[in-house]
């Protein structure tokens, strides 16, 4: 495999990142209302959220991608390969983030809510100043490991023609009749990106923990 091929595979990195960040951002945002519905005292909202979460998580991400791109994309609506992948991975991420948020919320000590009430803190301040920073700390490790998983799962995009790392590695393998080197190169790329994410999350977590350790 020549250096040209290596550079070609590397040029897939931006698309891998776009799909990953897009789906993650979508999940981070949509996970919040989903979690709010799930913990709502309103039984309709609660069961609706529960049903959505189970539904979204029960279907493999690759089937979601095919459903959106080949299913809906074949005549119902016009959807590109990249938006289809981002939405498919995004909705699954939303379901998982909703569960991660819920776990984080339940880890906040009941005494914190009592102190908020007894002090008479206004709702916006309670959330922004007291609950959110504590949620962030608890959510960070699980969200970071989910992000790493998502980064690797983004290779699904290659199945619908997004020219990401996996797609280009496959392309080079076919062109050069060498299966090992291009895929090994792609594997190294995935590793080189995953490790820093894990490291950064670990350091940030350790810093926060050290500050507020209980």
């Amino acid at each position: 495999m020549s250096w040209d091929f290596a550079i070609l595979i590397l040029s897939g990195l931006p698309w891998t990142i776009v799909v990953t960040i897009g789906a993650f951002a979508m999940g981070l945002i949509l996970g919040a209302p989903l979690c709010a519905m799930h913990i709502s005292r309103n039984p309709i909202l609660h069961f609706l959220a529960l049903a959505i979460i189970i539904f979204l998580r029960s279907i493999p991400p690759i089937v979601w991608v095919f459903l959106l791109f080949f299913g809906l994309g074949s005549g119902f609506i016009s959807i590109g390969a990249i938006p289809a992948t981002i939405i498919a991975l995004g909705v699954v991420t939303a379901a998982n983030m909703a569960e991660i948020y819920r776990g984080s919320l339940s880890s906040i000590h009941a005494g914190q809510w009592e102190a908020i009430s007894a002090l008479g803190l206004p709702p916006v301040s309670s959330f922004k100043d007291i609950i959110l920073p504590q949620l962030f700390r608890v959510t960070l490790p699980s969200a970071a490991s989910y992000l790493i998983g998502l980064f690797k799962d983004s290779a699904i995009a290659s199945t619908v023609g997004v020219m990401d790392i996996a797609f280009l590695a496959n392309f080079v393998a076919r062109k050069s009749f060498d299966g090992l080197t291009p895929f090994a190169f792609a594997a190294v790329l995935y590793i080189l990106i995953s490790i820093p994410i894990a490291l950064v999350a670990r350091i940030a977590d350790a810093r926060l923990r050290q500050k507020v350790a209980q």
Partner: protein
Amino acid sequence: MIAEIQAGPRVPEAAPNILEVRNLRKSFGVHEVLKNINFAMRKGEVVAVIGPSGSGKSTLLRCLNQLEPASGGEITIDGLTIRADHQLRRAELMGLRRKAGMVFQSFNLFPHLSVLRNISLPQERVLGRSRAEAEKRAHALLERVGLADKASQYPARCSGGQQQRIAIARALALDPQVMLFDEPTSALDPEVGLEVLAVMKELAEGGMTMVVVTHEMHFAETVSDRVLLMADGHILEEGPSAEVMRNPKSERAQRFLKAVMNR
């Protein structure tokens, strides 16, 4: 029907009532935890609420600032009356909580905020004080509870006794009319509890109106003006501390006091 007030000698006879509880009831489902509670307090009075576990002491205290909504009756703090049979408006609830500062058994400091910020942030958000003003007050209060050097620390780096003194400072910073203490030393080693009790004693001597749910019989006897002895959701006995604790009238009260005093 308000129970007759027998304030201790420290509180002037003419001091107005700052807290009145009338026919207060609280049920959890079918379980009635508070049964028709009546009492009143004068400004500057310190009342200790004692009694066996499950007697309703903590529930009574938590009803006073509506952490537990009452099932019946009414509560007046500093002119603001809350009735259980009226829908409580948010402004009333906030008003009530502004008048009553609360200290918990488990401190409940905000772990992600520095000691100083724990005390200054509520002042800014609840009272609208400027940051500089709030921090000035926080420093002064930390000085008062003997923790001026802890301002920049995080709560986790402080001992239990220190955390409870910080929690007291946090509540005081909002200028409450009444301070509610829910077993403030129960989570602490006895000797650590003493430093918290010392701060509370100093606060009492400074004229703060205080309701203290406690198992510290020495504190109840020496610092409080009056004792409410509760059992099974009732106020069993009420009166000047020494009188209730030395000469309890009912057999139930005698039994309880004998058990706790001879420990």
